């Protein structure tokens, strides 16, 4: 990449910082320059977020349909998978899988619900009602 080719598209990272890129000058010597972003990778990140959005919506629908407990919705909202939830809460993965069933979820003690609510940064009430939409 030549220095004048360092892309200057407007990416999300640009809110925080320009990023350092390595490129060659006209004599072929390496130098660095700052980039505000590259459209190719900005769209790649958009694809990732669209996928996440879709997973969140699917999870929401499943909870509404009574196919899953609200834990699934908040897991997706917080980009977590079973092993991440497991390491933050201390529950085993098989326990979490059980807690994802609406029938089991209904009978969970408040102390267990509190563990979930804490890692999702919500109250137990919000966990039960799935009322929290700001990610």
């Amino acid at each position: 990449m030549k220095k004048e080719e360092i892309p200057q598209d407007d990416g999300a990272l640009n809110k925080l910082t320009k990023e350092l890129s390595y490129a060659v000058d006209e004599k072929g010597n390496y130098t660095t320059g700052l980039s505000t972003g590259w459209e190719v990778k900005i769209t790649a990140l958009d694809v990732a977020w669209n996928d996440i959005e879709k997973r969140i919506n699917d999870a929401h629908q499943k909870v509404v349909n009574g196919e899953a407990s609200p834990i699934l919705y908040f897991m997706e909202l917080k980009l977590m998978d079973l092993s991440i939830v497991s390491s933050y809460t201390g529950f085993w993965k098989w326990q979490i899988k059980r807690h994802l069933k609406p029938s089991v979820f209904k009978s969970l003690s408040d102390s267990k619900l509190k563990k979930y609510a804490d890692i999702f940064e919500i109250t137990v009430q919000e966990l039960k009602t799935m009322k929290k939409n700001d990610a």
Partner: protein
Amino acid sequence: MTLDFKHIQAAHCENGVTTSLLQHNGVEKITEPLAFGIGSGLFYIYIPFMVINNGPAISFRTQPGLIFKRTCKALGIPVYRKKFSSHEKAMEALDDCIKKGIPAACQVGVYYLTYFPKEYRFHFNAHNLIVFGKENDNYLISDPVMEGTATLTSYELERVRFAKGAFAPRGQLYYPMEKKIVTDDQIRQGIKTGIKRNVRDMLRIPGPIAGVKGIVFTANRIKKWRDKLGPEKSRSYLAQLVRMQEEIGTGGGGFRFIYGAFLQQAHAYFPANDELMKLSATFTKAGDMWRNAAVQASGIYKGRLTAQQDYDTMGDMMIEIAALEKQAFIDLSNIKWSK
């Protein structure tokens, strides 16, 4: 209390931490490309049975932590590195460093890293930053990928130091333990060892998934993605490949440009080895080819390119890159060092 410390912006966090901390400890000649090359940072691996963020597990660099470890070792600098089970002790140890005037590096997760934009906050735990002071409850942070410095409250810092999931940092704290004078000969030796090890990693790891063979392996998989995964999932997979290759931290072109810069700087230490300059240009070319492949991939994930032929083109581009890099590493392994 603010320590006397110079923030340096780098393309990649671990290179940046290594460079800043070594410079702070008197190794003035160290640069990001040298740290990356001496630490044998360049790599490629695709782990087919693993899924990360619902996409393929691909990496263009070596395992987290190794660049710092190898570079310090090569330069004869002893390293302090500790993980903690107690949050309190982890924060006390850090406060002790500040009191003693030692800027120290922490491994952190980015999901709760408050100064990062939301779009970049995934559960990614191999980020590195340096703490170089504390004012009231605010820690002063030198995050190498940023132009300027940042702050985190003690609560925020504790939370990112104890992020959970893959590569959980477990409060990890590390820094070079001594100020040392590093000679040009030590750097030369480090360069040779670094290149040799990188040749091994790219050419000689058994099995099909790592090194240049891994690139070919991925290319052949990609050709099958359209039929096997369906168009939607293929798009997501290709987007993830491009992010691993081009996102913040790589310096662009899957670290190939940083490696090109390394070979050029290595030439200054081995002025008689002109092949280093030639090979630097080869890695620049490889980086450019990776970027062209990313453009091709983006055509697919934007939905503009949809035919099987477009996937084949993508795969073929990667096979071509693999051939170029293979030859480059063979040439590197055949260098007759002038010193």
